């Protein structure tokens, strides 16, 4: 992974100030929780959709253009 992402790092990506020492502050995500279930459900609904033709066409064109340029 390059660090070029830093150049476009939005202000909100700067590290947060130290969190107050609260025992409740860092609750890890429980992967069996309702929230985790809903997140996976949300993703799988979208992942089941066919990839839009526009995107497939774009990849084909990029691939063709590259193949031509290498000849």
């Amino acid at each position, binding site marked *: *992974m*390059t*660090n070029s*992402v*830093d150049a*476009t*790092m*939005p*202000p*909100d*990506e*700067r*590290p*947060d100030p130290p*969190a107050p020492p609260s025992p*409740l*502050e*860092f*609750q*890890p*995500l429980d*992967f069996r*929780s*309702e*929230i*985790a279930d*809903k*997140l*996976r*459900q*949300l*993703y799988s*609904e*979208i*992942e*089941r*959709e066919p*990839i*839009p033709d*526009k*995107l497939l066409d*774009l*990849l084909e064109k*990029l*691939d063709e253009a*590259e193949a031509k340029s290498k000849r």
Partner: protein
Amino acid sequence: MTQDVPTFKQAMLAALPSLRAFALSLSGRPDRADDLVQETVMKAWAKQDDFRLGTNMQAWLVTILRNSYYTQMRKRGREVQDSEGTFTSRLSVAPSHDGVMDMADFRRALNDLPADQREALLLVGASGFSYEEAAEICGCAIGTVKSRVSRARTRLQAVLDISGPGEYGPDGTNVSVATRVFAG
């Protein structure tokens, strides 16, 4: 026989469904999501020499996409909500029917999160990245990702609790107990 090493294009194709899910969930806008994915595909193609086959294509694409997203947000002059934002005033996400929060409600609640928290939650909870990978993608410390996920989780849980069965509401027993206590 040649070995079946996926080409760059094949690896990208395989990563697209999950990338679309991330784009749509992060932006909350179907129209914008596919533009983001398209832009990501073009950028990734142009930078493919930076990518080594066998490394994590998904993480690489997600990094490009989320950077494009934040760049677009800034260009649109839309402020990325700060983490302590206005969520509490919007906690009253109404469930569409009693006791069940359906996907539309959940999406709405997710969209109401500050973008940095939504992103962290999606990367760890849905895209399946580790906290370490998510930190690298976001260009921040692991502790920051953990904190964002934790806050997102707490806020979403509050919404789920509100829309869940009213087990803390005043039921007959509570009312009669309270009446007795205060009458005494």
